[in-house]
């Protein structure tokens, strides 16, 4: 096979330059600043600073609260990722089989995609309102005295429920198009070989959906770690108290709200390392098992 190549060396560099400069300006430079700041305690106005070495990091690992936040972040991310993928997949498989009114059905399912995270948080506050929320009253009928922003578990429940609800449409769209791209011949062949729909799904459909699933897994983990910020912020309204928060929200609380630049930078570096590690694991461990057609 003949390989296409550029004649000059500088031409590809020139083409890459806009993208590279954007990455440098908006990623490498801020990341470097965060790394540098994480070793200092700095007055926000920039008048004074003290070099404190690894103190900003060490205090995080000494703090039981930070560890609890880390645990909650893990539980939160896993729940949101798993539930939104699982429910979206179920809906997509069912929607794929619908013949009459399929368009209306699909449009209704995708609708929620247009809702911004803070709006989702606001809807949660209405649905789960302590005094007159429709869902609060529904739970009360079953003897569950639901108290958002007062009870740790109830607040966590509301946060996860809303974040999942908000993410299902994105996953649904991708899964549905993934399902529709499976060749009809393959499905028909499977139908002859195997009568059980469940078994057909796991042995034929699911492996063929794996590339879509892997892509969605990555964007869902990113979503649950970072994009849920707006939802959490709207639910807690800047006032965490003893309620659950994620590591990302903690970075915001300490840095932007509390003006603790050093402490907040150290936390963002920790997050950066976590995401880096996660990405490596995903590509090394998971992607190897996937076959692209």
């Amino acid at each position, binding site marked *: 096979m003949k390989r296409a190549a550029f004649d000059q060396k500088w031409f590809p560099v020139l083409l890459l330059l806009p993208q590279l400069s954007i990455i440098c300006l908006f990623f490498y430079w801020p990341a470097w600043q965060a790394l540098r700041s994480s070793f200092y*305690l*700095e*007055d*926000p*106005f*920039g*008048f*004074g*600073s*003290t070099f*404190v070495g690894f103190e900003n990091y060490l*205090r995080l690992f000494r703090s039981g*609260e930070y560890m609890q936040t880390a645990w909650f972040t893990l539980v939160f991310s896993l729940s949101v990722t798993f539930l939104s993928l699982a429910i979206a997949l179920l809906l997509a498989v069912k929607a794929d089989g619908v013949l009459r009114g399929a368009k209306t059905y699909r449009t209704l399912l995708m609708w929620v995609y247009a809702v911004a995270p803070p709006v989702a948080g606001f809807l949660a506050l209405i649905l789960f309102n*302590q*005094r007159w929320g429709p869902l609060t009253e529904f739970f009360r009928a079953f003897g569950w005295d639901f*108290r958002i*922003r*007062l*009870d740790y578990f109830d607040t966590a429940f509301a946060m996860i429920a809303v974040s999942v609800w908000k993410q299902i449409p994105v996953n649904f769209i991708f899964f549905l198009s993934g399902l529709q791209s499976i060749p009809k011949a393959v499905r028909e062949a499977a139908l002859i070989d195997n009568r059980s729909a469940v078994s057909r799904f796991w042995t034929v459909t699911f492996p063929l959906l794996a590339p879509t699933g892997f892509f969605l897994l990555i964007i869902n983990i990113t979503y649950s770690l970072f994009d849920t910020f707006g939802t959490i912020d709207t639910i807690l*309204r*800047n*006032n*965490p*108290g*003893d*309620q659950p928060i994620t590591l990302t929200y903690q970075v915001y*609380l*300490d840095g*932007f*709200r*509390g*003006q*603790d630049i*050093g*402490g907040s930078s150290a936390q963002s570096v920790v997050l950066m390392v976590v995401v880096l590690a996660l990405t490596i694991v995903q590509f090394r461990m998971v992607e190897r098992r996937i076959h692209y057609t």
Partner: protein
Amino acid sequence: MQRHFILPAAATFALLGSTAMAQVEITWWHGMGGQLGEVVNEIATGFNESQDEYTITPVFRGSYEETLTAAIAAFRAGEQPNVVQVFDAGAATVIGAQGATIPVQDLLEQNGAGFDIEAYIPGVRYFYADTDGKMIGMPFNSSSPVLYYNETALEEAGVEVPQTYEDFEQIAPALRDAGYIPLVQTHLPWEMVENFHSRHDLPFATNDNGYEGAEGTEILIDSPEMAMHFTKLKEWLDAGLFGFYGTSWDDNQARFNDGEAAMYIGSSGDFGGLTAMDLPFEFGSSFLPYWESITPEGYQTFIGGASLFAMSGHSEEENAATAAFFEYLTSPEVQYMWHRETGYVPITEAAYEMAREDGHYDRFPAAETAIRQLSLQSGENTAGYRMGFYVQIRDVMNRELSRFLNGETDIEAALATIETEGNELLGRFSQTLSN
């Protein structure tokens, strides 16, 4: 950013008449949204119309926290506004960064506007002052925690407004039996901790409550008085004499607005909002209760809310404009208007006098409660507090005290945790200031 809006306006102005003197433009960043923002704009318009040398442009920058963060970022980029509104808990950050602001007292004196601390109401004088009592920030929207009561509920239960927590203990069962939640609060750190210390003249931090400087300042919250107070609150909560609905202000105040709670401890600044809401019952306000067992007579509280700081790095003319604006802002007429429209306290004695003569308090007795409370007897520990990273310290208080009220920890452990984590934060803050 703001300059972009002003420059074309200034250019147009210059083109229109070469004989007209160019006006000095200054900007004011604030965090007052909604109806409060409209009153802020009214003040700015009033100032611009009162003279023709200066123009002030108010800009709404979001919440208090967002306003402060924006101002700090702008300062580091050399684009800071002339005037910025900073909330009580952020005061230590701004005052600690000497060189970021010009003390209002210096600014007014240098520009011949004159300054007399005695002209201010006692409770507002020293909250935004430095160690020597020099005023650094100009108190703007000042409020203090007071007790609001539902008159119908109290009548139904046949009880009087409590002056002390001992009184409250006596009357609370009658209110409960009449079907009410006797009491709710709205802000644990502000009402139940900070002003609790002032009301009983108890020290809240070492180094003169932190006013002597950040270095070595330690919070004093793990005290028998605090333990007693919160143990009582928990007892009342369990007995149905007190309601707690989390750390959000609104979730708690809503119980009073709905007529479910008979009394609530809130801000004197709620007065305007409560009046506008047209509640189905008559309400009144009274002083923040105190424990007679701790002090035979209650002391004054101090102000919460926010103040205005003059940021440094501007020309002499612009600073003169800022001084002229502060002078206008503290004039009795403007203060009275602000007080009347919003419910925040007037900060000068002259404005208070004017409101009284105008019969404002005959029409709205509840509007006067906070001013009278701020003018009660003063003590060693009634000026307020000055602690850095205080936003985070308040978060720790909210977290631990909520856990205690929710029955997840005991009061000794909660107070000890607040003290340990608070002191760690204070230590870190003092390190940010040293070079």
